[in-house]
């Protein structure tokens, strides 16, 4: 059961958590025993930031947010494994904004992104469950006057073997609340896992098949009004003229509010608000970005890419090795601006009062969301309650809080609750976009066809520098050359540099697969070019460069075997391979396509072999591979955001195409059993898509795709 904090604001009240969630050095207040007695049945056992047992049952607090990736279930599995409870005995609850308790230790923020969630939670959530279990068992043992070593737990019930007595967690919780948090928290050996590694059913899906799941956009509050907005089409533009009276004359319209660059109409339903916006007779001043166009941006990037960047990797001698090589390759690859376009459009519901505010929103960054409202309203952050909702997709879009900030600015004088919904058009045209990248690559191969030197220069915007400035050090964005500077291959002579180039008139953002999605398209296409230039089989060429990387080799061999790599292809068909180590996960992808002359590429069959270390839920891994690869393939086939006169040319799904069921290939996923630490899976499939597609097109047609999307370079 999913429950939001909206009805549960008392949670964690009265606890004194002194440290971050990483370490369970947590002590309950000294008067906990008396406090428990005073509230009797209602007393709460809250041994750490993630586990709560009280009159409502066993609640697991989710440090990461659910965007569809299945983390609520996987995180609950980690805790339940060590707590010794079944998943149907627990409820899960979104964590409130609290950086100390819920910071992702990889991202250094209370954030869900970069496929880090399971990697971050793998130890700390098992420890949270184990710590709670140890305290509960100790409490039961103390009540019975027996040794805890003689007790065991099954499904939340503690049994004392010798006497046959038993107590449930709920019964023993008040006593457990008086005990000290253990300093040593031994964890199970993987051979003892009961839940981890099973195809456990997802906790969030039953409410998603009957319409009862409440996403942010479904928020309903007493006295709530509905609003939609119009934003300056060109970034930096302003409202030039507006007819507010005309909007107010629309039946059902209640208020019109505005900032310099946006206006919202508030009404009794979305339809009234929408008609109100249409009635505004808006005209805009374009401002300083009115002349921006995609072609001008690309020209600037071309210029910028000619000059040296900040060196990310220099093994010495890469250029010299290429100069002396028998076969030399040079290429330029280009990757377009992209929109996130989650199916749930951006929205947020705000109730601002004089001395407090409450926000209902689906966000990947609850602390930033709270701060955005606090700053716009002048309220202290602790006076802003954030009710984080499940999300209808995010793909990185909800790692930014610009829309929440905009809503808070627009609504700051309104004292009744308002749900502000972006139309699809406003959402898409005011997205923060995946950067455009301009890559220059070169390579040299000796007379045996061995790669002897490689250079890679990435030119593009740094999302890191904007989103996490401390991580942008010495001019290097660690994301910008992820999977380009370091590869799974035996390479000893690589030169990689980064040219930061920030295009005017738009904002860039994280987008599913981040640096890996862009760089793997380039790198894995270019590796294919190397193989073909030296008349080698693309799988065999990669295989020879994996002498020191058995996990990468294993997924490559598995995918090649399952895909029938050596089988003869029918006329017009092609097969492409992509191999990667990204998000600490090894993944090989082999895609089969058909190219009918004069027609679009038809995607036939995607075969993925994945080694993501220990698997928490194999069905979730499979689902993320299936969905991730389709997300990446659709994007590579169809998607780019372009600008004319400073404004975005695309506006909705008619001109920003999303892959449909009739266009989707079959997808097969094979998982390698492993006891290594978990890697990330949410973005790996997306990153594996474009390289395999470009290589499959070459296999079918002999045409090399070096610029995406495919729809701009018909085959």
């Amino acid at each position, binding site marked *: 059961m999913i429950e939001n904090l909206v009805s549960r604001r008392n949670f964690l009240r009265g606890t004194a958590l002194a440290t971050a969630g990483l370490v369970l050095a947590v002590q309950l207040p000294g008067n906990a025993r008396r406090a428990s007695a005073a509230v009797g049945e209602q007393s709460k056992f809250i041994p750490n930031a993630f586990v709560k047992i009280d009159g409502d049952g066993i609640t697991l607090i989710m440090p990461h947010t659910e*965007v*569809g*990736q*299945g983390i609520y279930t996987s995180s609950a599995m980690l805790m339940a494994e060590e707590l010794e409870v079944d998943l149907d005995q627990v409820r899960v609850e979104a964590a409130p904004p609290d950086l100390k308790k819920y910071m992702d230790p990889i991202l250094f923020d209370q954030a869900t992104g970069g496929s880090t969630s399971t990697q971050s939670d793998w130890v700390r959530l098992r420890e949270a469950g184990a710590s709670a279990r140890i305290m509960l068992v100790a409490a039961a043992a103390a009540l019975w006057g027996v040794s805890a070593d003689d007790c065991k737990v099954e499904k939340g019930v503690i049994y004392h073997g010798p006497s046959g007595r038993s107590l449930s967690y709920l019964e023993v919780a008040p006593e457990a609340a008086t005990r000290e948090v253990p300093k040593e928290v031994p964890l199970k050996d993987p051979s003892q896992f009961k839940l981890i590694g099973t195809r456990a*059913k*997802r906790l*969030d*899906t*039953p409410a*998603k*098949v*009957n*319409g*009862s*799941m*409440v*996403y942010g*956009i*479904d928020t*309903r509050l007493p006295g709530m009004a*509905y609003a939609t907005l119009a934003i300056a089409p060109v970034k930096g533009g302003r409202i030039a003229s507006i007819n507010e009276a005309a909007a107010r004359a629309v*039946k059902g319209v209640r208020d019109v509010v505005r900032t310099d660059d946006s206006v919202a109409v508030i009404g*009794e*339903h*979305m*339809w009234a608000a929408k008609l109100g916006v249409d009635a505004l007779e808006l005209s805009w001043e374009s401002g300083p970005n009115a002349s921006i166009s995609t072609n001008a941006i690309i020209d600037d990037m071309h210029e910028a890419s000619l000059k040296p960047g900040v060196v990310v990797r220099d093994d010495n001698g890469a250029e010299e090795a290429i100069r002396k090589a028998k076969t030399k390759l040079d290429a330029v690859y280009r990757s377009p601006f992209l929109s996130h*376009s*989650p*199916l*749930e*459009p951006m929205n947020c519901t705000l109730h601002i009062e004089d001395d407090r505010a409450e926000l209902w929103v689906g966000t990947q960054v609850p602390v930033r969301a709270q701060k955005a409202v606090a700053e716009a309203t002048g309220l202290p952050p602790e006076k802003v309650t954030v009710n984080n909702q*499940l*999300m*209808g*997709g995010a*793909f990185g879009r909800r790692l930014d809080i610009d829309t929440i900030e905009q809503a808070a600015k627009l609504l700051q004088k309104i004292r009744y609750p308002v749900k502000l*919904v972006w*139309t*699809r058009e406003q959402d898409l045209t005011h997205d923060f976009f995946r950067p455009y990248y301009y890559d220059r690559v070169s390579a040299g191969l000796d007379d045996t066809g061995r790669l002897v030197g490689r250079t890679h220069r990435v030119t593009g915007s740094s999302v890191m520098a904007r989103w996490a400035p401390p991580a942008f050090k010495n001019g290097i964005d660690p994301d910008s050359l992820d999977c380009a500077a370091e590869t799974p291959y035996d390479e000893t002579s690589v030169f990689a540099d980064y040219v930061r180039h920030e295009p005017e008139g738009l904002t860039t953002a994280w987008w599913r697969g981040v640096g890996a999605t862009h760089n793997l398209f380039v790198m894995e296409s270019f590796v294919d070019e190397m193989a073909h230039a030296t008349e080698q089989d693309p799988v065999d060429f990669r295989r020879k460069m994996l002498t020191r990387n058995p996990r990468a080799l294993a997924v490559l061999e598995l995918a090649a075997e399952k895909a029938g790599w050596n089988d003869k292809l029918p006329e017009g068909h092609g097969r492409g391979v992509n191999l990667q180590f990204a998000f600490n996960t090894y993944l090989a992808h082999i895609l089969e396509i058909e190219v009918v002359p004069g027609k679009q590429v038809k995607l036939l069959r995607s075969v993925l072999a994945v080694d993501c270390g220990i698997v928490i839920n194999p*069905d979730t891994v499979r*689902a993320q591979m*299936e*969905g*991730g*690869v*389709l*997300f990446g393939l*659709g994007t590579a086939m169809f998607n780019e955001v372009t600008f004319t006169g400073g404004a975005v040319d695309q506006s*909705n*799904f*008619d001109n920003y195409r*999303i*892959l*449909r*069921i*009739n266009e*989707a290939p*079959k*997808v097969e996923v094979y998982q390698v059993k492993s006891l290594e630490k978990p890697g990330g899976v949410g973005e790996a499939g997306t990153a594996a898509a474009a390289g395999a597609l470009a290589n499959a097109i070459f296999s079918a047609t002999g045409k090399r795709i070096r610029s995406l999307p495919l729809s701009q370079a018909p085959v």
Partner: protein
Amino acid sequence: MRKLTINGQVHDVDVPDDMPLLWVLRDVLGLTGTKYGCGIAQCGACTVHLGGVAVRSCQTTMDMIDDMPITTIEGIGDTPIGVKVQAAWLDKEVVQCGYCQSGQIMSATALLTENPKPTDTDIDDAMAGNICRCGTYVRIREAIHSVNV
């Protein structure tokens, strides 16, 4: 006042003739299971049944409805095929973010009501109007094939 029969219940609503059913369901009646995705009949998230036929509620205005009964995702589980489709969706664990799935289930139920044994091509034809941004198509297809009507 206009009478709407939704999931077997009669509702009186006072809304303009040109107001799309989508917003009447969501904002006037509080039936938020039907989703807004694009507003131009490109994504299918707002699919409901009108007189048993799958329609996009963002394009279905009040004056188009006449007396035809409306079924939404909140009521589809009370139909013999709808309940099986929901069960298949959970059995195959189709859902990721879930935002499109109300519409997917409404389209799939309409398909299976008309055609108990759809081929892959039938599924393509009936379901191509429903976008899934998470890419759950592989499992949507499996789930539809698994329903024993």
